[in-house]
């Protein structure tokens, strides 16, 4: 009997109790809890959650909001203090990078250990171990103890071990935090593939971009409770708005009062000013970025086009073009004649920098992705402006000149 729900929780809560002193604790132990001073901290309370098989849910929330606690409870490394939960299928948790590895065990042994703890037989794990080490790119050091690994290597091993045994439910905590860009991309690709293959994914991230890229649904935890849950764009936008209200955007690097400059909206329009979400390659479009800067700090505004698999395809900025933004608020219009992007879905990310273009005040994702359709038959990312010139075979003159 397999439930249609991969994860189900009812009023789930987790309390951490700290004792005033070890003596108080002994006192409590001896008096069956009637005496002894302690303080309870509810890291999580009243969380109701239903996650159908094959769905992906992202958790967002400020530091200490209970995201990691929820993941830890669901991954089974800690027990709930209130409520109940159940999971169906094998659950693999990747909770802290490189954690869960025994430093003295070799990489191979750790993968084996991980697999056995997940409920696989030794034979099943052994059969896949080569594949796992290959994905982690650690074949050469598989028999060295994990303590000799760099943090990046341990991260790779953890990721590969968690995914390599094809768990039905994957629980990931902020996994994109380290590792080089290339491997990060490999991980994202793999996760997208896993999602496409119908695995259930539950993960938390501070990167609203990652959440939107990976998840259908999101859940915003605030002080251990569910603040909003639902469709990922709605939840992340509300969360981002709340953060901006608090003047403490985790999306931006800075934290501070309301007076920090910020981007208030990003919209794509055609040359006539009509709002657009779908364009054809070669169309001329405008991106309107509204901003406020009540303290008249020197600021610069940038816009990035990010493909779904985290490739930053283009990034433009006022600092590169010597444009000055003046006043306390305004809208800058970025005109893009003959859009060179080929077919794809692009996420528009607005950046608000300080005057030197070094410090990022804010990173804001447009509510709508930009869908580009091909008008021509070229493949690739962009259509380079070009023409062809033909020369006859007798001359060595080569001109594949760009116009």
């Amino acid at each position, binding site marked *: 009997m397999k439930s249609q729900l991969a994860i189900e929780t009812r009023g789930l809560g987790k309390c951490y109790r700290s004792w005033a002193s070890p003596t108080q604790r002994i006192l409590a132990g001896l008096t069956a809890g009637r005496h002894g001073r302690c303080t309870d901290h509810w890291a999580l309370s009243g969380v109701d959650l239903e996650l159908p098989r094959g769905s992906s849910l992202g958790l967002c929330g400020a530091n200490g909001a209970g995201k990691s606690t929820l993941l830890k409870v669901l991954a089974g490394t800690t*027990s709930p203090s209130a409520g*109940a939960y*159940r*999971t169906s299928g094998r659950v693999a948790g990747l909770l*802290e990078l490189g954690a869960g590895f025994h430093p003295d065990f070799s990489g191979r042994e750790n993968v084996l250990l991980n697999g056995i703890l997940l409920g696989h037989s030794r034979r099943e794990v052994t059969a896949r171990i080569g594949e796992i080490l290959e994905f982690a790119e650690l074949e050469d050091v598989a028999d060295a103890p994990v303590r000799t690994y760099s943090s990046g290597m341990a991260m790779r091993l953890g990721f590969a071990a968690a995914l390599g045994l094809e768990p039905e439910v994957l629980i990931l905590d902020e996994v994109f935090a380290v590792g080089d860009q290339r491997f990060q991309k490999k991980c994202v690709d793999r996760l997208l593939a896993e999602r496409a293959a119908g695995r259930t994914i539950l993960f938390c991230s501070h990167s609203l971009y990652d959440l939107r890229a990976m998840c259908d649904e999101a859940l915003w935890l605030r002080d251990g409770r569910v603040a909003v849950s639902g469709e990922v764009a709605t939840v992340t936008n509300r969360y981002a708005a709340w953060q901006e209200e608090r003047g403490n955007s985790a999306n931006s690097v800075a934290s501070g009062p309301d007076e920090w400059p910020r981007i208030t909206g990003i919209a794509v329009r055609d040359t006539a000013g009509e709002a657009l979400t779908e364009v054809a390659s070669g169309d001329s479009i405008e991106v309107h970025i509204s901003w406020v800067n009540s303290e008249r700090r020197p600021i610069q505004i940038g816009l990035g086009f990010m493909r779904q698999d985290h490739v930053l395809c283009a990034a433009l900025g006022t600092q590169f073009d010597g444009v000055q933004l003046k006043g306390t608020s305004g809208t800058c219009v970025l005109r893009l004649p003959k859009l060179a992007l080929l077919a794809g879905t692009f996420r528009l990310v607005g950046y608000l920098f300080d005057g030197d273009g070094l410090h990022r005040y804010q990173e804001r994702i447009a509510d709508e992705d930009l869908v580009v359709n091909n008008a021509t038959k070229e493949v690739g990312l962009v259509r380079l402006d070009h023409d062809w010139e033909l020369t006859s075979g007798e001359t060595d003159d080569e001109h594949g000149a760009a116009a």
Partner: protein
Amino acid sequence: MPPSPPIESRSVPVPPSTAGGWIVPGRPAGRELVGEILELPRTLRSHADLLKGGLSRELSARFRGSALGFGWVLLTPLALFAIYAFLFTRVLGLRMGPDAPPAAMGVYMFIGTLAWSGVAEGIARGTSSVLEGRNLVSKLRFPAELLPIQAALASLIPTVCGLALFALAASFSSLWSAPGARLLWAPVVLFVQLLLTAGPALALAAWHVRLRDTAQVVGVALTVAMFATPIFWVASPELLPGIEPLLGWIEANPYHHLLQCWRAVLMGDQPAVVFERTDFYSSLGFAAACGALSCAFGLAVFLRGRRELADEV
């Protein structure tokens, strides 16, 4: 005592039990606890690889970087035996009564020391094992009871090596008469020793996680126990006239019976003065019963609080 949830969350309808795969808070008790205890053989079987790996790692870690390596497991008891034999028989001329062979005192102490040091090491290491394995306990769904059990298993290895060496030496040299057919009981005695080590180790490991004074107390208690158990002395009023009123206490000590069993297995029944008050089978039975009880108690204590371990280590 699980903390009571905040008022608001109490109104949510919550499945009351673990039926239907629900995982609920609270400590297992009654039938559930018994079920978890009976689960142990299965856990051990499914994690046999881990245990084996852990044991070999523990051994290799202990001798890593030493030229003799595993040889130390054999060399240490050999040196002990040489010292005891020389000191007590040659230098001090101690004898276990007029009829006892000259090496008897040395052999008696040697066997006692080897077996006891195994027990003591297993309990001491087992006590701190969960805290030291916090990486496994807090980050993975690891059956934490394996850690004290692994420590207890590891502690058997030097004992086994030392005693095997003695049996060999006794068989092929004139140091001591060769062990008889009772040697076949050695695996049983070893298992009893495992029970008597793992049981306390489990309970103490669980307590140590909550109260870090436990390991200190254990250290002191083990030292006291080492002298309270007849290891360097013989519980015989003939040899120690003042011991008479304490004999009842000594005979209630399961570790005394364990050591007596080892001696009976390896020394035969002589010198008589050592064995006059104990019978091999009843000693073994008593030690085994105490071992089984201590294991049941240790497991119950450990498993009851296991779900909280991850938050405490």
